[in-house]
């Protein structure tokens, strides 16, 4: 079986070539495309490292959503780019930085080569305690039970990022609606895709969450698919981002952390520890958290790509009459 190591070498080589290209290419849009390709190749590496859950996350968020975000920004920043690019430091400084980067890379490689053997691992503990939750996927167990605190705080970080982005809106636009910067003009092909793919994608997103109890998948991966479907509908011009002041939108944003926190505090009362699930109720409680989470995370990810509101809220008088039915959340 010498073909597998050879394939590993080949994949690693292509990943490095694409990474070099991403850093070196002159045009920023090309660099973003390189980064997306890099992310997809990296997903292959994650599969080879025995981490299909991470591969799904990398492909969906690290490559897909980040790419959508950056390609829009690259297009908007193209105007003044060449003058800024001319500020590149001279050759001696660049060589110095290259030397620094080499030292860092060499240090990481050195750490890799001096890692203890046999490797310390928590895998046996994860197996031993898997029965307590009734879930078969060890990653879901870690995310939702053993290290649930991390996952809850991560929700809060996502929420803070949305608040940070909203706070960058001009005063006049506060409470208004974000405008997707790269929304195409009405287009038959894109509209067709949005109409056909969205139902499939919504089912798929929920399925990815549902199977994550025992198979690779999860709330983040599912939420990313839902967010992508929402963005597709927005880009096709079939819907609008709701005003950020709308109550339903804000509810969607807080329901995930709220349910998580409530169940966590309930654990404090019932079982004596924050975020501990009572015996026998772990699986339904985890599913409740995950379903609340998928709504929040999908809305959050969509809003992170959509950016700050640019247009002011509708005037008080016309709000009732002039606002068509909008999707508050995917």
């Amino acid at each position, binding site marked *: 079986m010498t073909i597998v190591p050879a394939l590993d070498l080949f994949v690693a080589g292509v990943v490095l070539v694409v990474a070099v290209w991403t850093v070196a290419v002159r045009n920023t849009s090309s660099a973003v495309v390189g980064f997306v390709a890099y992310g997809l190749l990296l997903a292959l590496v994650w599969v080879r490292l025995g981490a299909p859950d991470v591969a799904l996350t990398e492909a969906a968020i690290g490559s897909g959503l980040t790419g959508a975000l950056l390609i829009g920004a690259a297009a908007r920043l193209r105007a003044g780019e060449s003058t*800024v690019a001319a500020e590149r430091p001279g050759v001696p400084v660049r060589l110095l930085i290259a030397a620094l980067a080499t030292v*860092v*890379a060499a240090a990481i490689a050195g750490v890799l080569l001096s890692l203890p053997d046999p490797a310390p691992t928590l*895998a046996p503990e994860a197996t031993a305690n898997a029965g307590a939750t009734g879930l078969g996927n060890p990653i879901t167990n870690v995310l939702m039970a053993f290290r649930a605190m991390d996952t809850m705080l991560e929700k809060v970080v996502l929420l803070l990022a949305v608040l940070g982005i909203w706070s960058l809106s001009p005063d006049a636009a506060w409470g208004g609606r974000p405008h997707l910067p790269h929304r195409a003009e009405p287009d038959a092909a894109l509209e067709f895709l949005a109409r056909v793919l969205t139902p499939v994608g919504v089912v798929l997103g929920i399925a990815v969450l549902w199977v994550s109890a025992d198979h690779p998948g999860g709330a983040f991966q599912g939420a990313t698919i839902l967010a992508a479907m929402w963005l597709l509908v927005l880009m096709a011009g079939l819907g609008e981002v709701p005003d950020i002041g709308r109550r339903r939108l804000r509810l969607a944003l807080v329901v995930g952390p709220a349910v998580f926190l409530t169940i966590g505090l309930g654990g404090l009362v019932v079982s004596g520890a924050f975020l501990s699930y009572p015996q026998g109720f772990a699986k339904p409680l985890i599913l409740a958290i995950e379903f609340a989470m998928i709504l929040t995370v999908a809305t959050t990810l969509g809003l*992170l790509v959509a950016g700050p509101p640019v247009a002011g809220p509708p005037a008080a008088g016309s709000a009732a009459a002039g606002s068509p039915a909008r999707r508050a959340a995917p």
Partner: protein
Amino acid sequence: MSEVLVFGLCAAVVAGLGLYGAIVDPRPLRKILGFNLLGSGVFLFFGVVARRGAAAGFPGDPVPQALVITGIVVAFSATALAVTLLLRFFETTGSSSLRDGAAADGARDTAES
């Protein structure tokens, strides 16, 4: 377990490349890209460490793998915030240069035109 060595070295080189790009390139968006590369190199290193911890029938240690999933999501939210800051900066000053005084120049250019 040759993939541990191959992808571990790959992670080290990607992290170095990302660091170089983040420092050398004066364009802020390229700095963000470089920073993302640096981050994904570190994540990959986590993945390699997780792979070394393969035991009890799992292909890898699930704890670092779960940490990486959390990390990728947080990295995305940080990237989104950075890009929004950058776009707002560009709108306000008319230039995306981070050099001292360049913002003022850009603002003057925009005001004149």
